[in-house]
């Protein structure tokens, strides 16, 4: 595999290579996971040999191009899909189905349109904290509505909210379940740039309060560096696998505007971007090599004379 040329201005800030062996017991781990869809000739391998350890309390970002199997990976982690081979484990138990311990925020919000903001959040709270009293649950719901700053819109339905507000509701709904792991599946990619940067900062703020284990999938390298402790690139599919992890050693709390001038940030951004671009080029080259279609041979024709014909056109 060709490794990207690193601009090692601050080598200490960027660690390229295998995860540390001394890391504590992982919360979620994937070992040799493969996943594909279809069978026979239409079989399409999406993910191959995925190995990943998510440590307790860390914020991990997986960056990849669209169509590289990011959502499939997320579904495996959430338990909505089962791996064809290999194992996905959480606290040493194999994940066989979805669980309330792994809260998922979907890319397209997945809010139920017939419920209000409060209703959407209560649905999960009422389900997860069944043993609580009614007033305890209600206070819990209100707390999370306030947390994402939607107190003024608690009675509105999703279609009356902007994209950013909807994603806040979705985030509140998942956080209110108090999951052990927060899975964010491209939570901000459907939003406009301005809303996106506001929400990045909010997610970061909420995460710094709770320090919850978090895994975020994104296609934005800047976003990954801003929020994550570790960045793992996903090599382009088909047969996608994970690349080497980049550790982000930037002080928290991080500020987006300040980061833009930080040399470590710039170096890391270059490193990750270069890596992603080079693996994509490699995969494209391989695809071109593997394709069985014969190359198109153009006829070798040369005009005798490039001068325009003179006089009226005469048919031969």
């Amino acid at each position: 595999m060709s490794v990207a040329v690193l601009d090692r201005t601050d080598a200490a800030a960027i660690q390229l290579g295998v995860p540390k062996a001394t890391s504590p017991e992982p919360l979620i781990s994937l070992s040799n996971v493969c996943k594909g869809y279809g069978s026979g000739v239409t079989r399409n391998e999406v993910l191959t040999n995925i190995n990943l350890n998510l440590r307790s309390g860390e914020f991990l970002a997986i960056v990849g191009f669209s169509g590289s199997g990011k959502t499939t990976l997320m579904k495996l982690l959430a338990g909505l899909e089962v791996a064809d081979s290999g194992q996905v484990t959480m606290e040493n138990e194999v994940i066989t189905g979805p669980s309330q311990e792994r809260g998922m925020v979907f890319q397209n919000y997945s809010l139920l349109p017939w419920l209000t903001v409060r209703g959407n959040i209560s649905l999960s709270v009422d389900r997860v904290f069944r043993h609580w009293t009614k007033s305890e649950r209600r206070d819990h719901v209100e707390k999370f509505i306030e947390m994402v700053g939607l107190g003024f819109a608690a009675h509105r339905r999703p279609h009356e909210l902007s994209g950013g507000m909807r994603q806040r509701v979705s985030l509140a709904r998942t956080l209110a379940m108090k999951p052990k792991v927060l899975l964010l599946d491209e939570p901000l990619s459907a939003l406009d740039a301005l809303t996106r940067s506001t929400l990045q900062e909010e997610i970061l703020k909420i995460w710094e309060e709770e320090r919850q284990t978090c895994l975020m999938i994104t296609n934005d390298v800047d976003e990954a560096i801003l929020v994550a402790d570790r960045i793992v690139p996903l090599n382009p599919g088909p047969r996608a696998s994970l690349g080497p992890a980049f550790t982000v050693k930037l002080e928290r709390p991080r500020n987006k505007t300040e980061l833009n001038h930080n040399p470590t940030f710039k170096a890391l951004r270059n490193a990750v971007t270069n890596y992603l671009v080079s693996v994509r080029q490699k995969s494209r080259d391989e695809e071109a090599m593997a394709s069985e279609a014969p190359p198109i041979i153009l006829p070798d024709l040369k005009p005798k004379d490039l001068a325009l014909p003179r006089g009226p056109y005469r048919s031969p």
Partner: protein
Amino acid sequence: MKNLNWRGNALKFCNVAGLPILEPFVRLIAGEDVKEQFKGIVKFVVLPVVAVAVFIGLWSLAARTVVSDSVKLPNPTETWNAGTELFAMHAKDRAKDRAKKREKTFEAVSLIAEAKRSEQLASTASGKEKETLLANASTLKQRAVQAANYKPSSAPTFVDQIVTSLKTVFVGFAIATLIAVPVGVLCGMNPWFNAALNPFIQVFKPVSPLAWLPLAGLVIVWAYADANPDDTLVPKSFLVSAITVSLCSLWPTLVNTTLGVASVDKDYMNVAAVLKLSWWQTLFKIILPASLPLMFAGLRISLGVGWMVLIAADMLSQNPGLGKFVWDEFQGNGTLAYARIAFSILIIGGIGLVLDRIMICLRNLVSFGNPAAA
């Protein structure tokens, strides 16, 4: 701010109720651009009025042309007069019935009074005389009860027939809904069940109501075989009509419910899976609310089909509704009869329109952020 809220709510109402005709007026009152709103008024009010006027003109022209020796096409004025006459007849009949009823009630009261007097006399009398007086009192009481229970039995008027038709269509529609919605939900949730039912749905869906009617009648005759015609809760012809209506209006709801349930957004199902909702919870909290818009779209078509079918079913089963009215008038012949038929066509259309509007409104109430075009 309060003003704006008022405007927003009024506009939302126009949208949900499927009444775009009111929208320009609301905007005008709220003080929006007059020119723009005038365009809206022209589109939704002036243009339809002009179109109706043109139609009435063409109709009058046609009425003057389509004339034979015995009959002629009724013109708008004749139709209108026939209609007002029908309603006047209804009012007159009702007044007569009420007078009769009052008379009977009065009779009942006086009979009771007489019975009381007899009883009083009996309490002072003795022996044979007492017995006769008591017997007299009880017969008087019986007659009083009869008089009090008097029900006017004049022939059904046009308005009565409209009411009967509406009752029939609602009973038929209710039966259809009670069958179609659960079956549709099952079909939508289980592709195997759907595959098993699909041949029946495909074959029976296009069958005309008139073909169903004899079989519906047969089933009713069988069910009523032992019953005394006087104690049955509803008349036979009513049930035949209602069941024909339900057999025809079953299919759109069934097909749409199946589609609605089968096409519930995968993301909602993922939410249910992550929350580990039970089967019933998933059904009632996710699947049914999510499929309501399509289900109501189906119910709307069903009610429309039901109303259309009802007229034919009424004609054939002699259920005293609008269909029978049209049929009886047709037998009657004469210009007045045709004018009445023309009037009842307008009434049938008007009621159909109102039913459709109600269903659109219901559908819009359950489809958040995605109201249907009216």
